[in-house]
């Protein structure tokens, strides 16, 4: 039986499936738990580090921006405190100071102006023509006139370009004056723009109304800016004053926001980065981990399947061998029981048959003295007695066969010359062969070793094989039988080959079974070949058969010999 046919059995298929399932479950569970935990820890750790890093950056930029604004405010405050009102009313003086500031800080200071309490710019130094400009209606002026210092939101103002102003209030005999400086938007904006991380990370500033106070690097879409500002402020707040939140934009992509209030909480500095960009490293690590788990999974599945299949094949083979052994044990037991039964029957039959035969003999004895019986009747009685004897003899042969089958006849080993024995047996069959139109040929190898075995038993085997061959040929109206002897290795091989009708394949496997016969009832006991098989086995040899329908049958008898044979 081959491996495939063994594994077709539903029991073994189910066993394979169970083993595969268990192997996969047992292997996958720890792998998934360990990998999942590690990935989760890594993810948490990465998140914490990323947010901490972004927080630090925003804090640093908050300090930079606040520092920038405070510095510029201090510049103006220094001017306001250092110089007289009259000096500040002097346009040339103001221009000189603007020039000095621009020399020191570049183009950060765009212009300077000195404004009276009515909002009229008394003196102006700068690129625009804003002398005598009135700011009395400007919102920033109203706030500036009421504060010691003030930094406005970004606005377009009279010049029509985005800018914001820093103001310092001075008092002269109770009358308030305002020294104003315009801060270049581009210079301020570059401070915010410098905060760039990855491909999508950038910063911008909103005022409390949600209006942009710097130019965002990418467009920030949000339908309701105020609500957006509030959303940012609603995020997780740290003790450093940072706000962390994750908000989806109009396109649906998730963004990380880290924000901090600046300029006395008037503005909010917001850093934004696309989440997938921010977590690119983590995502790469996740993908790598998933790939490793996937490949590991494939290896586990394939290994589980192959291993289960291999193990189940081993189990199936062991089961099959055990079953075969059981069958052999049962078969042997059956044969032993059959042998005992046959032996018992033979013994029990022998007694009545013996009486029957002897009674017939006794009648025969008496007939010799009987003179009264007519010749006709005498002949008939003698025929009947002869028939009783013949049938008794037949019964005896049957019981002898049964005893032979049970291996309970008396045997003895002796020196046997195989070729002589073959010739002798062929001689026995010559008469029958002649009448049956059968030609018996022999091809005997010279110098075969003398064998030590039971002459009568081997004779019985060959006689049986020749009789069977003749039975087959007689049914076929004659034919040829060839008996050969050969020396093959340590074996003497005797072959009995006929060119008869052959044995159907279905019968070939059972041909040595006891009581198996294809002969008509009363013509065969089905014990002949079974006995031959037993005899040859007892001799340590082997008897096999090969047959082709309509071509003939060959029996091979292999007898081992030793040199001392």
């Amino acid at each position: 039986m081959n491996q495939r046919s063994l594994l077709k059995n539903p029991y073994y298929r189910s066993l394979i499936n169970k083993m595969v399932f268990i192997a996969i479950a047992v292997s996958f569970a720890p792998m998934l738990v360990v990998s999942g935990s590690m990935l989760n820890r890594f993810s948490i750790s990465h998140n914490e580090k990323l947010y901490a890093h972004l927080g630090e950056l925003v804090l640093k930029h908050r300090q930079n921006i606040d520092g920038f604004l405070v510095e510029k405010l201090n510049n103006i405050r220094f001017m306001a405190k250092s110089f007289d009102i009259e000096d500040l009313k002097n346009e040339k003086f103001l221009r000189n100071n603007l020039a000095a500031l621009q020399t020191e800080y570049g183009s950060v200071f765009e212009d300077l102006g000195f404004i009276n309490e009515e909002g009229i710019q008394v003196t102006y130094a700068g690129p625009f023509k804003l002398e005598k400009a009135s700011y009395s209606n400007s919102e920033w002026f109203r706030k500036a006139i009421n504060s010691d210092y003030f930094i406005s939101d970004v606005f377009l103002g009279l010049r029509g370009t985005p800018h914001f102003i820093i103001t310092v209030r001075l008092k002269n005999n109770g009358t308030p004056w305002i020294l104003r400086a315009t801060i270049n938007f581009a210079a301020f904006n570059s401070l915010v723009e410098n905060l760039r991380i990855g491909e999508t990370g950038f910063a911008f500033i909103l005022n409390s109304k949600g209006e942009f106070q710097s130019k965002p690097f990418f467009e920030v879409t949000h339908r309701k800016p105020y609500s957006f500002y509030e959303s940012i402020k609603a995020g997780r707040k740290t003790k450093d004053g940072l706000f962390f939140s994750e908000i989806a934009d109009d396109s649906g992509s998730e963004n990380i926001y880290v924000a901090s209030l600046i300029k006395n909480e008037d503005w909010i500095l917001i850093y934004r980065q696309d989440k997938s960009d921010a977590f690119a490293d983590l995502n790469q690590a996740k993908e790598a981990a998933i790939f490793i788990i996937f490949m590991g999974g494939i290896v586990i599945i394939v290994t589980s399947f192959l291993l289960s299949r291999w193990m189940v094949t081993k189990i199936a083979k062991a089961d099959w061998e055990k079953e075969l052994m059981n069958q052999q044990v049962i078969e042997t037991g059956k044969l032993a029981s059959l042998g005992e039964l046959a032996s018992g029957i033979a013994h029990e039959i022998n007694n009545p048959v013996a009486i029957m035969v002897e009674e017939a003999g006794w009648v025969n004895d008496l007939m010799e003295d009987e003179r009264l019986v007519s010749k006709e009747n005498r002949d008939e009685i003698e025929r009947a007695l002869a028939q009783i004897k013949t049938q008794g003899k037949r019964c005896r042969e049957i019981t002898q066969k049964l005893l032979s089958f049970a291996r309970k006849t008396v045997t003895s080993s002796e020196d046997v010359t195989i070729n002589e024995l073959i010739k002798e047996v062929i001689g026995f069959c010559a008469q029958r062969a002649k009448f049956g139109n059968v030609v018996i040929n022999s091809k005997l190898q010279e110098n075969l070793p003398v064998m030590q075995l039971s002459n009568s038993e081997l004779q019985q085997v060959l006689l049986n094989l020749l009789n069977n061959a003749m039975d087959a040929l007689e049914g076929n109206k004659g034919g040829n039988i060839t008996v050969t002897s050969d020396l093959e290795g340590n074996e003497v091989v005797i072959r009995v080959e006929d060119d008869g009708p052959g044995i159907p394949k279905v019968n070939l496997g059972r041909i040595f079974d006891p009581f198996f016969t294809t002969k008509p009832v009363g013509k065969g006991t089905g014990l002949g070949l079974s006995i031959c098989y037993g005899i040859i086995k007892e001799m340590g040899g082997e008897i096999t058969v090969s047959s082709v329908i309509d071509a003939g049958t060959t029996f091979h008898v292999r007898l081992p010999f030793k040199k001392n044979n």
Partner: protein
Amino acid sequence: MSDFRPNHNPDIIRLLFVDDEKGFVNVMAKRLSKRGFDVIKTFSGPEALQALRKADFDIAVVDLKMEEMDGIEVIKILGKMTPDLPVIILTGHGDENAAREGIKSGAVEYLTKPCDFEELVRKIKQVLGK
């Protein structure tokens, strides 16, 4: 035991037949008697031993498997009582071990039922050298 005849004619072979198959013993006794044997029929081991105590025999034909006393045992006792008495085994239980055991116990020949009557007569005469 039946047909016990203690008188002895030296030309007649005195044969002790031991077998529990009465029909077989009877017919064999008739046939052997017709051939000139003086046959004493016994149907069990004890009967045979009893007959042996009462008379002398030239030969004994013993079955192996008998109900009261096994044939092998009978042969062994016969051997002890009359060591010179040859014993032929004639049994329906002709297996190898029984034959070996019988010969070992003192039997000189071993025949199986149903046997050729003439062969039995020949064997008896051969054993007795007649």
